[in-house]
């Protein structure tokens, strides 16, 4: 009787030990390494700052909820200082030393183009938060991007202009990558839309006064002005236009996506029309809008954690992580090729910038409907209605 009892106890103990070791092993499942290169300092700090904060916040949330396929995500963030040479060095570090599955970012087009080949050749997934069309055109199988297309933004703007009967416009852009890319799209698509660009000028992104440029534009008797830049010029343009008496509609790019720019522009910002992701007007979306829940959730989390307004730029990092996680889930593995293929087959994924539908030809996944046309009324963003 004693011997049998001892045997049973012994088996129970071994079984218990096995259970414990299995559970312990599962808890120790290797983390999924994900790299991120953001321009937290330097010229694109207003892009990289929110991107970094968003990425860290989202990874924390995902890990708290159990990770992906039972594995936690380890996010390794590097600050490139908006320098492509730093991005190159850091990309190589992340790929060769940290052996990451994927890299999120960088924040600017120049940096992304500098590391595009490196990621493609080392078969590391790159999900960029930069806007240039060159990033996904021509398509490199491992390279994706999350911001909406500049060309779609331009098309939406021209649509509104046609409806308003505007035919002659003046275009001013900043001389950074974003501004120049926008200027190019505007020039390319104007004829098709029946719009004449009477004047197109590029100003320095750090310009402290735009009355000179706008005087030149005023001299061309335009029906509307399009400004393609990020801060600080966006707010300055609105004010300067009113100050020199250029009272025509002002259209801006989707870089206008932060309420702070409206506050900075003050009264002059009222009436600005621009395409934007729906994050900024999440509250007033109809309840059946598929993006509403995600957007409100992101906004609430970001603003309560960081005590600053959410911007669409941070949303690009959010989407990048979402896409990667979805790819890992679908592939049920962390094999680079399998995850890449899974990402290419993602359809209908709700993100902050829009609803993503990827394919082997389309590594951006967003179309014109990702944008909502917004305008500013009494210092707030509202949906633009003709």
């Amino acid at each position, binding site marked *: 009787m004693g011997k049998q009892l001892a045997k049973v106890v012994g088996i129970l103990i071994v079984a218990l030990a096995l259970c414990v070791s299995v559970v312990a092993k599962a808890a120790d499942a290797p983390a999924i390494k994900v790299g991120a290169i953001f321009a937290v300092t330097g010229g694109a700090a*207003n892009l990289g700052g929110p991107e970094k904060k968003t990425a860290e916040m989202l990874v924390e949330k995902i890990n708290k909820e159990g990770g992906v396929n039972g594995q936690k995500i380890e996010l390794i963030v590097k600050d490139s200082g908006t320098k492509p040479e730093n991005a190159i060095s850091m990309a190589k570090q992340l790929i060769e030393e940290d052996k990451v599955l994927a890299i999120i970012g960088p924040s600017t087009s120049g940096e992304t183009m500098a590391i595009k080949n490196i990621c493609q050749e080392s078969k590391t997934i790159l999900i960029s938060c930069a806007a240039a069309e060159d990033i996904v055109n021509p398509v490199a199988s491992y390279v994706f991007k999350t911001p909406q297309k500049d060309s779609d933004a331009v098309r939406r703007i021209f649509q509104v202009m046609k409806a308003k009967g505007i035919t002659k416009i003046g275009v001013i852009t900043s001389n950074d990558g974003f501004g120049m890319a926008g200027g190019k799209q505007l020039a390319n698509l104007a004829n098709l839309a029946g719009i004449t660009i009477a004047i197109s*000028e590029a100003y*320095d992104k*750090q310009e402290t006064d735009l009355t*000179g440029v706008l005087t030149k534009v005023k001299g061309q008797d335009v029906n509307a002005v399009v400004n393609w830049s990020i*801060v600080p010029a966006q707010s*300055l343009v609105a004010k300067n236009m009113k100050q020199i008496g250029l009272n025509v509609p002002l259209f801006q790019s989707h870089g206008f996506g932060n309420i702070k720019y409206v506050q900075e522009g003050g009264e002059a910002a009222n009436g600005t029309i621009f395409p934007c992701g729906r994050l900024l007007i999440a509250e007033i979306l109809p309840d059946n809008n598929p993006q509403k829940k995600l957007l409100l959730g992101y906004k609430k989390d970001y603003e309560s954690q960081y005590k600053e307004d959410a911007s669409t730029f941070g949303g690009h990092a959010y989407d990048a992580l979402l896409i990667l996680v979805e790819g890992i889930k679908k592939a049920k593995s962390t094999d680079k090729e399998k995850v890449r293929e899974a990402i290419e087959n993602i359809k209908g994924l709700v993100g902050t910038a829009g609803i993503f539908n990827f394919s082997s030809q389309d590594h951006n996944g967003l179309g014109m409907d990702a944008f909502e046309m917004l305008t500013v009324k009494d210092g707030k963003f509202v949906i633009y209605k003709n």
Partner: protein
Amino acid sequence: MNLPQVVQYCFAGVTVGSIYAIVAIGFNIIYNTTGIINFAQGEFLIVGAMLAISFNHFVPLPVAIFLAVVVTTIIGGLVEIVFIRQVRNASVLRLIVITIGISILMREAMLHIWDEKVRSLPYFTGTGVSTVTILGAHISPQVLWVLGVSTIIVMGLTPFFRFTLTGRAMRACADDRMAARLCGINDRWMVTLSFMLSAGIGALAGCVISPVTQTQYDMGASLAIKGFTVAILGGLGNSMAAVAAGLMLGLIEALVMSQFDVAYKEAVSIVILLLILVFRPSGLFGKREIAAMRAL
């Protein structure tokens, strides 16, 4: 181009020119006393504006500006005492290099204290959409404020340096520090005073241009470059000339913009700087011998 267009371009030129001039005035004060070019001058402007913007949340605008000027003046004095005064074997070159370091440090400090967002002070009169109409062209009233404040500062400084004892003592230090000391002038205190004065005036300048240019942590460097271009153009040390040179440069830039691609405007000011340095370093209004004496 019709008259209103021309006047409008002139206004654009005057707007930027007045900004350049008010930065240059700050350079000249320190140069007049020490012979060094303070690369951190731009940062004094931005610090002053940032402080005023923060203070403005608690106190009315004039008080906020006053406080900002006071605090920046103290910062200027501290900068001198902690950094400049400690440099042994102070050659002009070494001091210039240190001011570069101080400029970067101040900029990074501002980034971490205030973050990268763009801010501005409220307009002194009116709002962002107010305009004043002259000869058919429009200008923001704030630009008139910039011009007004620059004029008052220059009108105050010129007699200060020419007639008051302190002012002349400061100029004596720049000419020959040993001789000044032998005359009983406390040269070290004069240098500190010059930094404090430059910082305070810089802060005031920063506040008055803030509504026009908006304020961001990294604007100091580009302001400084334009500022000393104008200071050299007018003749280092001469504040009235700086105002004239500033307005002139602003008008030239506006002219270039009206006829050519806007992108060439930046190149113009750099080319002018290089030409002046090579052909007439004493500046348009400076005396040749002074430049030769000053240069070390």
